[in-house]
């Protein structure tokens, strides 16, 4: 794993380019939002509750929220292909983790894993770490399992399964897109400083969560 400062002339072809995000990020948002429209149009299915419950679930825990936004910001630092690969990998692996959680399969301490994810992803942003593709994918995939597991074991019984699933995955994906959007600040003169400072704030939060998980 090597470190270099993003936003300098050393960035090379992998650096994020603002033009990349126009159509590429708009399509999932537009179709994703459009796909849930019938949920509200079709009355009497309980779907709105299911969707709202699923959509709000990833937003209710600050630790989850920070980690998912951080994945997007780090992806923006890493540039192509990871800027898009990480938001593809995270929801898919997270669903796998959620399935493990639903069946209550044994896992290492989830609280530690989630706290570590916030801390390490914050460090990756703060230090502008340029990880190789496979390492970045592995880091995000491992953390996605922990986050998915936590969601899975807390899954509410009352939710409509289909609406809940759509809301859950859509909210997660949109948090990544939000992170990528914040990462666009890197294109501005002082943007890198801002995003790395945000990474520093995430590190502090991660350290707090880790201390709590360790009972310190």
């Amino acid at each position, binding site marked *: 794993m090597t470190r270099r400062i993003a936003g300098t002339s050393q960035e090379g072809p992998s650096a994020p380019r603002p033009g990349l995000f126009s159509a590429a990020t708009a399509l999932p948002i537009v179709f994703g939002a459009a796909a849930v429209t019938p949920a509200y149009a079709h009355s009497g299915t309980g779907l709105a509750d299911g969707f709202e419950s699923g959509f709000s679930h990833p937003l209710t825990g600050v630790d989850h929220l920070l980690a998912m936004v951080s994945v997007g910001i780090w992806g923006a630092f890493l540039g192509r292909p990871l800027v898009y690969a990480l938001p*593809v990998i995270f929801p898919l692996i997270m669903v796998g983790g959620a399935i493990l959680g639903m069946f209550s399969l044994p896992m290492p301490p989830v609280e530690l894993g989630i706290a570590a994810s916030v801390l390490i992803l914050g460090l990756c942003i703060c230090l502008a770490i340029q990880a190789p593709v496979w390492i970045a994918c592995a880091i995000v995939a491992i953390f996605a399992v922990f986050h998915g597991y*936590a969601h899975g074991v807390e899954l509410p019984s009352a939710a409509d399964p*289909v609406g809940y699933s759509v809301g859950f995955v859509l909210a997660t994906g949109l948090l990544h897109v939000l992170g990528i959007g914040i990462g666009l600040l890197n294109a501005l003169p002082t943007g890198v400083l801002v995003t790395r400072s945000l990474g520093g704030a995430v590190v502090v939060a991660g350290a707090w969560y880790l201390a709590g998980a360790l009972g310190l």
Partner: protein
Amino acid sequence: MRGGALPGALLCVALGLGLASAREKTVVLGLAVLVVTASAIALAPVPQSWSDIVFLGCWISIIASAAIVYAPWTLEDKAALALSLNGGVWTGALIALAPSKLGLIHALPFSLCTWPGAWARRRGEAIGLKVLASWLIGVAALAATLQFLPATPGYGPDHMD
């Protein structure tokens, strides 16, 4: 309480994205196959006891259709038509099980996303489609698992509690 037209709409989106990698003439034919098949089966008497199988078929079809987005090659004509036929069968069956056949009108238009999808592929911006496809696969995998889970873990204490 299984989503009304939403599962069918998700399947149509997945099918539309999958067809985006086919030739344009095949896309038109594929969409026609989808509409005809789905309409015919939606009017057929599908027993409610088939519900689990129909929903499982829907989720598997969503995963299969969305996975095609990751293929770098052009989708062959026969494969595209088979995909459309498959999509039509499951969409129609879902609507046949739903209380209202109007769900078909809600679901089928989502297959039109194939044209913006094809446009994005031509511009070399298929990555947006891949992100969306991954979300669809995630939703389908989650919904398929929930279908077989007798009781979800419920409102237990949060991991932050």
